[in-house]
């Protein structure tokens, strides 16, 4: 078959944790920057959260945005935001919610704006609307004249409901983060749960920061995107943490930084593969998908990037900061029998033996022999030389690693 392309190294030895001061500082800057942008620049809230009246109009011929803006401003309901949306025949118009003393008056105002806009740009009826209008016209012997402006989308969110939507969105996000952290706590040690929660918060805050910087429209789909980002990011983090825990049980004698580095390196090609396939899919959605969800797609793409970054450079370093030590896992193996130190030791030895003797090779004379397969670790000077003879890195010289090696 065709040759396989290996985009990512099989056996990388990147010292992720060595960079932890830099990356944690970078994350802190990102978070502070996001918070700063949020408060200084603010979010470009969509009508979902701000209230207002939105029209997506498609005219029968090319229009000038300024002319449309002038026409609409002349209606006397304030100056709407008008922007090109797709082709030169399309315009997106947003009227702010009229400030009215009571909700009733606000609703009346909104419906007045709607009628005024419809009168200015007579709607082109379509589908059932058209059938109904035509049927009525025929019955009444009146000539039916269809308008020429296609009302592709009309949305109106009252100021009260927009407040509710914002509240619900914030609540959903907070609950999702807590629920995910609770699950991690249930499945892992507490340090992992806290690191995961902080990493999620990091991803959410920086996404909000991105929206503040570029002033993308922040609306309901954005909240959905943020929760999805949370889901994606935790997915990534869990894979790394799972591996970290596994390696800690295996190498419970080594410094935690080394073990975490092993875990990150061993999961690196998976992490990058998955991020890349997801990004590819999202790129297709960005390039070919509907215009209406473009900002949503941008948020998701950012989420994949920041989610991947945070599992490698934020969540895992946090474990070190919180003083997670591989020794904790030494004890965990024999949790049930804590009194008997000898049993603990024996269990630990068996555990290591199991792991190491699992691998077998068939020698030339057809006999199976156990071999020790071991990842070459950065701080192990003995093995640091170049690897020879193919990619399988097994050593036939069986060297038992002493349990108490420092």
């Amino acid at each position, binding site marked *: 078959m065709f040759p396989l392309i290996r985009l990512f190294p099989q056996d990388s030895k990147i010292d992720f944790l060595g960079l932890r001061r830099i990356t944690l500082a970078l994350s802190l800057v990102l978070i502070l920057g996001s918070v700063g942008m949020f408060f200084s620049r603010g979010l470009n809230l969509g009508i979902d959260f701000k209230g207002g009246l939105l029209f997506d109009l498609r005219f029968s011929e090319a229009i000038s945005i300024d002319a449309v803006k002038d026409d609409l401003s002349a209606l006397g309901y304030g100056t709407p935001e008008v922007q090109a949306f797709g082709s030169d025949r399309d315009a997106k118009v947003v009227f702010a919610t009229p400030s009215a003393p009571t909700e009733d008056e606000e609703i009346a105002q909104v419906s007045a704006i709607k009628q005024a806009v419809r009168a200015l740009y007579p709607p082109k009826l379509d*589908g059932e609307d058209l059938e*109904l209008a035509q049927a009525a016209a025929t019955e*009444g012997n009146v000539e039916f004249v269809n308008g020429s402006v296609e009302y592709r989308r009309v949305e109106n969110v*009252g100021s009260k409901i927009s407040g509710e939507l914002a509240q619900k969105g914030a609540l959903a996000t907070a609950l999702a983060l807590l629920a995910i952290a609770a699950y991690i706590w249930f499945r892992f040690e507490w340090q992992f749960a806290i690191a995961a929660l902080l990493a999620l918060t990091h991803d959410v805050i920086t996404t909000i920061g991105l929206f503040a910087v570029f002033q993308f429209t922040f609306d309901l*789909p954005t909240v959905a995107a943020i929760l999805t980002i949370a889901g994606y990011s935790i997915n990534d983090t869990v894979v790394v943490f799972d591996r970290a825990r596994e390696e800690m049980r295996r190498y419970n004698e080594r410094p935690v930084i080394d073990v975490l580095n092993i875990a990150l390196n061993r999961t690196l090609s998976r992490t990058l593969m998955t991020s890349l396939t997801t990004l*590819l899919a999202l*790129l297709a959605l960005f390039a070919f998908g509907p215009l*209406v*969800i473009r900002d949503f797609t941008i948020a998701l793409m950012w989420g994949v990037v920041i989610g991947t970054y945070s599992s490698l450079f934020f969540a895992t370093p946090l474990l070190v900061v919180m003083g997670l030590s591989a020794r904790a896992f030494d004890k965990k193996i024999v949790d049930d029998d804590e009194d008997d130190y000898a049993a603990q030791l024996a269990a630990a030895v068996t555990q290591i033996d199991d792991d190491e003797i699992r*691998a077998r090779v068939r020698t030339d004379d057809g006999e199976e022999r156990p071999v020790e397969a071991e990842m070459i670790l950065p701080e192990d000077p003995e093995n640091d030389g170049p690897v020879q003879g193919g990619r399988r890195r097994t050593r036939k010289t069986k060297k038992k690693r002493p349990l108490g090696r420092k």
Partner: protein
Amino acid sequence: MSYTRWWQPVLVGLVVLAGLYFAAPNLFPRTTYDENNQPQSYVPAPFMQFQVNLGLDLQGGSYRLVRVDLDDAKASYMRDVQRIGSNTLRDQGVALRAIASDTNVRFQFRDETAMLGAREILREQFPTANYTDEGAVLTVGIGDEAFEVVKQETVQSVRDTIERRIDAFGLTEPSIRIQGEDRILIEVPGVSNIDEYLEKLELSIHIVSQAGATRNPNETLFMLLPDSDRVLAPGEQPTQYLIERQECVNGSDIQGTGVDAERGIAVTFTLNSRGTKDFANCTRNNIGERLAIVLDGEVISAPNVNEAINTGAVQITGGFEFNEAKTLATLLGTGSLAAEVESIEERVVGPGLGAESIRSGAIACLVAMGLVLVFMAFSYGLFGMMANVALVVNLVLLLGLLSLFGATLTLPGIAGIVLTVGMAVDANVLVFERVREEARAGLDPGDSVAGGYGAAFSTILDANLTTVIAAILLAAFGTGPIQGFAITLTMGILTSMFTALLLTRLLINLWLDAFRPSKLPM
């Protein structure tokens, strides 16, 4: 030794076939509706009728959240107390004067004894109302319990009226649901404007006591339009009518309605037996006077009464346009809304935009698939191909599952599917990377595969469950389109776990059995 148990291909095969079976109806045209609103399906016999529901943002339509004005309902309860209460008390011979406000009714009696007697009589009629007395004055307010009942009845009645109206206009497949205590969610596919169906039309017929009058705060003064001409010349003042507070006939007694275009355009309606009797009485007693036909506080027409009308057939002319008359007749025929409704959230998508969204969404989905398929094939070779089979099957299963549960596919839902395409391979990537590691450690192909799956399983489970948690919260808190996104995301995770863990494993095991390779091609 075989890597495959006999039941594994059977089980996986059955699930895949079921997925195909449930997904297949979506290949056929969507159900249409004929003039009588009867569904016409195009799905042939061996398949079930389940197709994926398209959300309003994809098929076009109107989504409207309205609030029922409960203050209005309260006021109307107070008017009932005033009207029924005064009639009952008058029948019992208790003299009084009653003044209603929006929140209570004050009954003024001759003395305290009369008041106490009247209170008992009223208590029988309105047992849940609030009674406070002060000397000869009795104030009746609406109690919490009464308000609760009024609230429920009003919202239900408003919902039913809206449904009758939408049906009367011949719109297909509306969904009208009560949400919370005073909200109604109205979703109508295929139309862009339902404003006119939400109008509260109140029609009543009164006796005119004075035309062109000036305002007297104690009387009901309706201004408007000179006889049968709703178009005013510039500068012309509308005529004002002073009319009697008590109506002869009230809109709830209207039965059949229609439009008559023979001599000018007129809305016609017939009254039920009570209305006919009231109308006959009223016209008999007021020959030579004028009637005011009042719609929403405007006098539409004020004809002279020449003789008693006993037939209960009424015609209103008011300079209507034909369409206007037609709409008015239909709305009157479906009854008045029990309270006013206010539109608090509206999302309307035209059919053009919806169709475009489906098209571009489908293209994006296919391109995403293509990219991921090629990428996987080049990264993992034969195993990548197997993962690709799983990815395609995953989409079929997802579509089948969405159809089976009648889930609604929304625009963000399409994004959810595209995202699933990207993320679905994750489980396989995890497994394959593990298998590679095991193989590098010197295990034979069979053990590498088993080891890879074993080691990756709990990771996959943890990783997916956390995403499901986020998705469930989205479904719980989101509305409409967002829920659609959460649903496709959750279902996509479930189907991708099936295809990644069971289907690809089966394919790999079958391959191992067939070729007994000494080395993995990856």
